[in-house]
């Protein structure tokens, strides 16, 4: 099965936990007309990682790096959910049955439904299992 088309490039930005860092990231993306589709912040002791799905990941990477931010690409996958009660349960059950371990996850709900973004240990394996179990994965071309 061709799995590459479902691998989505998330940008991950190392940031100290202090006022103004998110604004600095957001401003840089605004100025380069990069649209943020989904986003989350993971926090540890005194620092965090800002994770975002953007329409132009390469542009985002280069502008943030040039401003001194420490940026990396991380491979994630996106599963479509029904935007109604039980929507998350349907997907979570499939993941559980397939034995897929989630490292982290965040979600958004937009014009065309709800989307669950997942970071898993082995994307290729997870993509095959999720498709075989009948769930819908979004192709990276929908984002970038």
């Amino acid at each position, binding site marked *: 099965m061709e799995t590459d088309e479902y691998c989505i490039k*998330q940008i*991950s930005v*190392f*940031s*100290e936990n202090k006022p103004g860092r998110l604004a600095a990231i957001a401003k840089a993306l605004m100025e380069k007309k990069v649209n943020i589709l989904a986003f989350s912040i*993971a926090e*540890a*002791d*005194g*620092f*965090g*990682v800002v994770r975002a799905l953007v329409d132009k990941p390469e542009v985002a990477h280069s502008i943030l790096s040039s401003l*001194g*931010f*420490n*940026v*990396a*690409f*991380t491979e994630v996958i996106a599963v479509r959910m029904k935007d109604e009660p039980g929507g998350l349960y349907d997907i979570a059950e499939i993941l559980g049955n397939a034995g897929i371990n989630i*490292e*982290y996850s965040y979600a958004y709900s937009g014009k065309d439904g709800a989307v669950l973004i997942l970071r898993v240990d082995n994307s290729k394996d997870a993509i095959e299992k999720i498709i075989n179990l009948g769930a819908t994965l979004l192709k990276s071309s929908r984002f970038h």
Partner: protein
Amino acid sequence: MLQSDKVFWLFLPNTMTRGMTQYWDESMERLNGPDLKEIQEKRLRNTVIQAMKIGYYQKKFKESGIKPESIKKIDDITKVPFTMKKDLRESYPFGFIAVPISDVIRIHTTSGTTGKPTVVGYTKKDLDNWAGLIARNLTMIGLKKGDVFQNMVNYGMFTGGLGFHYGAELCGLTVIPSATGNTKRQIEMIHDFSVTAIHCTPSYALHLSEVAEEEKTDLSSLKTGIFGAEPWSETMRKELEDALGITAFDSYGLSELYGPGVAFECEERDGLHIWHDSYLVEIIDSKTGEQCTDGERGELVVTPLVKEAMPLLRYRTGDVTMKIEDGCLCRRAGRIERITGRSDDMLVIRGINVFPSQIEHVLLSRPEVGNQFMVYVDRINHLDELTIEVEVNREFFSGELHDLANLQNKLVKTLHDALEIRTKVKLVEPGSLPRFEGKAKRVIDRREIY
């Protein structure tokens, strides 16, 4: 029984009483003028002979063109080059030991400037001398048989634990070797055993007093507090005395000169008596190495006069003080003012000496982080906190939070192993720490300690 009494008397000079002042070894403690000079010079000559058994000093004397036998008078000492802490490090582990290792019956270590610690060794005679000096100090502040003494400092490689322990036993006190940690238990023992005197770092004593107050434990048996291993101010003395109902005394020492007991306050608490028959004192300008005039502050340089296993000549302590020339009401001679600072960048954190170079050494060994760092020292609830900011290397960042969290934990652990204290590590963004062109100022000490 008779046998052991005999041995006992060999080490136990009479405790003399003159007016209110108690002495452990009155003739030695009050020695002054030509008599003092005579004994100092005799001991200095012996110390030079002892030092010449060490390769380092043989080489130093040869290089400087000094004949050991030319060091006869006190003033001759200025011909001898200084001995620095880094010299001890370079001779790790036993390069400064002047006796066969089998005659060294104890080893302690203290923080080195990088990587390896500084090793200090003691012969039987050294340990007896050291205990005797501690006994002088304890007697000087009025402690005697019948007092119960709780020694709340580290009993391991740190000299403060065993040093005070044996001195206090020699002096006839009832010693509780409680060591560090478990504040509630420490408080319980002070109360239950009717402890009259404690020894710990001043910051720990303040912490203890607060916990005792929360617990509503009565510590009224206490009358004396001995505080050392870190600098503390007169304001802190007042706070300690009010909180614990004690008289607080300042204790000074360093492992290279045996350990604690080098200098100590008497009941006047106006400067510390430095035991002049055992330590030859100079105050120098740390930049030029020139002698300071009387009443001028400078770096304390000491030549210990009775050390056998590890003789040192003109050892630079890094501590800033000055000589006090006026006589003291207790009639002992030889005083220095309380330590007012450091001539180098050494920090004292919870009684442990920390050199910024040790931190640098650890960080250099970890490719995940950069070589820039900043150190912040704070005092939070009376306890010192060391926070180290370090930049994550660009190449290391994988995008994963847990890799960073693991790195943070690893750094805390490696630093703990190297410094023997727990630190807080803050990972900061690459390029965000200040870069220094001249002399780096990496340490920001936000405590008010002097």
